[in-house]
């Protein structure tokens, strides 16, 4: 690429006065032969361009390194966040498990309390039934005792009646026979002694019966106590 003399001079002036020069790959295409002044200009511009590019390259590389570090940090952040999410999920899962277990325990406790209450009620019922049974037993024993007493009394009564009957009958018969013997004037010695003996025996027996009855009564009273 060839430039005219005026253009070359304008470019040189621009560089000297305003420090503005050509840059980039165009410098590699310009023909500088036969013009040492312009050759120097192109060399200066190339040098300036090279320095600028070197600086930019360094900065870009630094930015690139920083970017890579940031990317790594970002990846690390993402990894940590993922782990955190995972941990959070695990904690939530554990919480859910605990809640479920807690609910189960509460339900179990309520069941236990209900069963305990039912058991207490059943025990109270059982105790009541036992008391009732004991009362019934006591009543039955009392009834039986009463019945026995009644029977005993009846028996005693019957014995007394029969005994009294026999005693009175024998007494009456013997007395009648004695009176008859007196009326018909028969020997009364034998019948008299017999009558008195009989009356004595009857009285003795009567007292014996009464004594026996009293003894039985006393004995049954002691057994009861």
């Amino acid at each position, binding site marked *: 690429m060839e430039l005219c003399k005026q253009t070359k001079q304008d470019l040189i002036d621009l560089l000297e006065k305003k420090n503005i020069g050509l840059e980039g*790959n165009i410098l590699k295409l310009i023909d500088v032969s036969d013009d040492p002044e312009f050759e120097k200009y192109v060399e200066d511009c190339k040098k300036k361009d090279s320095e600028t*590019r*070197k600086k*930019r*390259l360094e900065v*870009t590389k630094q*930015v*690139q*390194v920083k970017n890579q570090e940031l990317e790594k940090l970002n990846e690390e952040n993402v990894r940590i966040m993922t782990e955190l999410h995972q941990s959070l999920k695990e904690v939530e899962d554990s919480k859910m498990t605990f809640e479920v277990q807690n609910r189960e325990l509460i339900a179990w406790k309520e069941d236990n309390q209900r069963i305990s209450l039912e058991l207490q009620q059943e025990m109270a019922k059982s105790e009541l039934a036992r008391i009732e049974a004991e009362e019934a037993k006591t009543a039955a024993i009392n009834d039986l005792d009463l019945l026995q007493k009644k029977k005993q009394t009846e028996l005693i009564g019957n014995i007394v009646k029969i005994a009294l009957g026999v005693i009175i009958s024998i007494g009456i018969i013997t007395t009648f026979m004695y009176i008859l013997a007196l009326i018909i004037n028969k020997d009364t010695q034998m019948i008299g002694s017999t009558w008195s003996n009989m009356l004595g025996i009857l009285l003795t027996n009567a007292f014996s019966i009464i004594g026996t009855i009293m003894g039985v009564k006393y004995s049954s009273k002691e057994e009861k106590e």
Partner: protein
Amino acid sequence: MIESLMLVDDEDLFHLVFEDACSLLDISLSLKSVKSSDEAAKMFEKWFKGESVDSNKPECVFVDLNIIGSSFDGIELIRKINFEYGNHVVIGIISSSNEPEEQAKALQAGAQFWIIKSDDIEPRLELFKLDYDSYKNRTGKFKVYR
């Protein structure tokens, strides 16, 4: 010096680094930077069919291996450029990856070089510049610049 060069890379900052490095090392006169393999494929398809208004078809193409936001990766782009749109450019991978399996795939797709992308890219580009002529006349073997 390479007349025209194309860089296909999704990272904007690397466009600047690559442009400055190429300029400082006098590697190329003009550089076209694109961000996706789809965009690059479309451009090559138009050049191949003669539909493009841009007649400045690059002599050499540097392709990133993993181009985020693209339909296909750098190796597939190289395959397309080589086998679908004509094999007329020097083409290779520029990537931070150094996996032999990927390098073998790239070679199979027609890549001529593999430059490891790092903070200090200039020494590798200088070596590449020395080998460029062999790539251009198809005598240079596939090489990895570590």
